[in-house]
């Protein structure tokens, strides 16, 4: 077989070289296509019902494929801090048309939709519609009520609807008792940032999506910082009342007995005390969700 040896070696080398080359070429192609992918391509067909008919009974497999695309679409834009997530709603619509019982698409997809930019599509109304569709198709899955309440409260600032959602969810057999607790909190402490913190903490503990986990952490640290800032500003207010002018540094407050030491934010950096007595974090970019509530709201 000696004569074959030469051919075998040459062919084997060719095989390796060509295959590697093809991988390189393919990456170039995908780069090119990244610029050109059209709505029709990503969706293949804009109508969920049409896709379902064509899927020849493999609709739940196709649903998984579309969900994978939705996640990929969202994830890649999230990293790029995109401003628009135009294809997200159609993708989720098709996914849930293909498989109405794909819970994760409702749970995570609606949060992708409702979040404000650049974390999400800033389409809370569509998100609500999506979750309600999920509830219609999966009435015993009470956690969707939590998601619904969450969206109403956090992104639409609609406490009443949030309360209704938690109430209804708590009535589903098998619902955990804290749904009732959440409903109660909506009624009584809806303005309190700790309520939002409670919601975000639940999301952080229950979600399966790493982007959503990330967002939850950022919200929680922002809430933490916000609570710190409000407490600190209360102290500076007391100082101003006592001494007639705002403190000039943290040492003033410490000497006045209002603080034990220099306060640091969740990032470990000391808070900045401004001339007018307001408090800020060192690096606002790390805490994008701090809200400045009007003084009347702060109790």
């Amino acid at each position, binding site marked *: 077989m000696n004569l074959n040896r030469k051919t075998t070696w040459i062919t084997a080398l060719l095989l390796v070289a060509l295959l590697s080359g093809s991988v390189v070429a393919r990456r*170039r*192609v995908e780069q090119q296509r990244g610029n050109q992918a059209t709505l029709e391509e990503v969706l293949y067909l804009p109508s969920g019902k049409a896709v379902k008919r064509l899927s020849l009974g493999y609709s739940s497999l196709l649903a998984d494929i579309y969900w*994978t695309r939705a996640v990929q679409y969202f994830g890649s834009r999230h990293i790029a801090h995109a401003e628009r997530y135009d294809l997200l709603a159609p993708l989720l619509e098709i996914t849930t048309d293909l498989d109405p019982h794909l819970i994760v698409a409702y749970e995570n997809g609606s949060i992708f939709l409702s979040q404000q930019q650049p974390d999400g599509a800033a389409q809370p109304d569509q998100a609500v519609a999506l979750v309600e569709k999920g509830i219609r198709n999966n009435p015993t899955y009470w956690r969707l009520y939590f998601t619904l309440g969450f969206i109403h409260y956090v992104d639409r600032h609609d406490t009443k609807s949030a309360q209704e959602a938690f109430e209804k969810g708590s009535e589903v057999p098998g619902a955990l008792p804290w749904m009732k607790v959440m409903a109660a909190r909506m009624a009584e402490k809806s303005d309190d940032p700790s309520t939002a913190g409670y919601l975000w903490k639940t999301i952080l503990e229950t979600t399966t999506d790493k982007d959503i986990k990330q967002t939850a952490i950022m919200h929680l640290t922002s809430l933490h910082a916000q609570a710190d800032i409000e407490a600190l500003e209360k102290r500076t207010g007391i100082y101003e009342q006592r001494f007639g002018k705002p403190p000039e540094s943290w040492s003033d407050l410490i000497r006045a007995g209002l603080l034990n030491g220099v306060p640091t934010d969740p990032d470990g950096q000391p808070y900045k005390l401004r001339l007018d007595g307001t408090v800020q974090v060192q690096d606002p970019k790390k805490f994008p969700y701090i809200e400045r509530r009007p003084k009347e709201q702060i109790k």
Partner: protein
Amino acid sequence: MTSRLSAITLNTFREAVRDRVLYNLIVFALLLVASAPLFGQISIGIERLILVNVGLSSISLFGTIIAILVGIGLVSKEIEKKTLYTILSRPVRRWEFIVGKYFGLLLTLVVNALLMTVGLYIALLITAHGLKKGDALLLAAIYCIVLQFMVMVALTLLFSSFSTPIFSAIFAFALFVIGTFAEDLKNFAAMTQGFTHWLTTGAAYLVPNFASLNVISQAAHDQPISGSLIAFNTLYAVLYSGAVTAAAVLIFERRNLK
């Protein structure tokens, strides 16, 4: 060497023609031309869109079916019928045989596609009462379909070199479906970690990428197809089908025929 290669190529082509495999194109062309006026009835404005979609998808699908049906027998039929014995007793290298078969089938598919294209243009002429600028875009789409054929022929040839026709058909069809969803496979691979990640990414690149080779919807929507996309697609198709054919040669060179 070249004369042997071209002899095998042309003989493979001749076999396909005499096998009445190409006669489907006449059926297709006639059907398309005959049904062209119907598209006008469906809905004004998108008749061209539908015609182009149907036409291009048919060319792609018919060609792939022929590639599979003829491809699975390319080598196995010759072994089964022992026609290979008198070929191998001649100064024909085994790799020349494989490569000749490849080009023979590819030639068959290209001729088929060209003739179907003529039918498509005739149908377009009838519905639109004239050709417009965008119709040249169709040629780019058909070129990419030919690239797809290059890959498909290589794959069926590979399977034919070691497997029976039935299994070759199953593998080839499976790869066709998987290759259509190649990008989704890559997305899935991106979502995994660790060893699974490497495994699925490897698989994703090993599988043919038919998704990128498909520019039918762009052509249908009259969107421009960039020259560099076509260039890289060409490069990919050539390299990938070359690799697969090399694998087929490797297998066939060592094979004890029955």
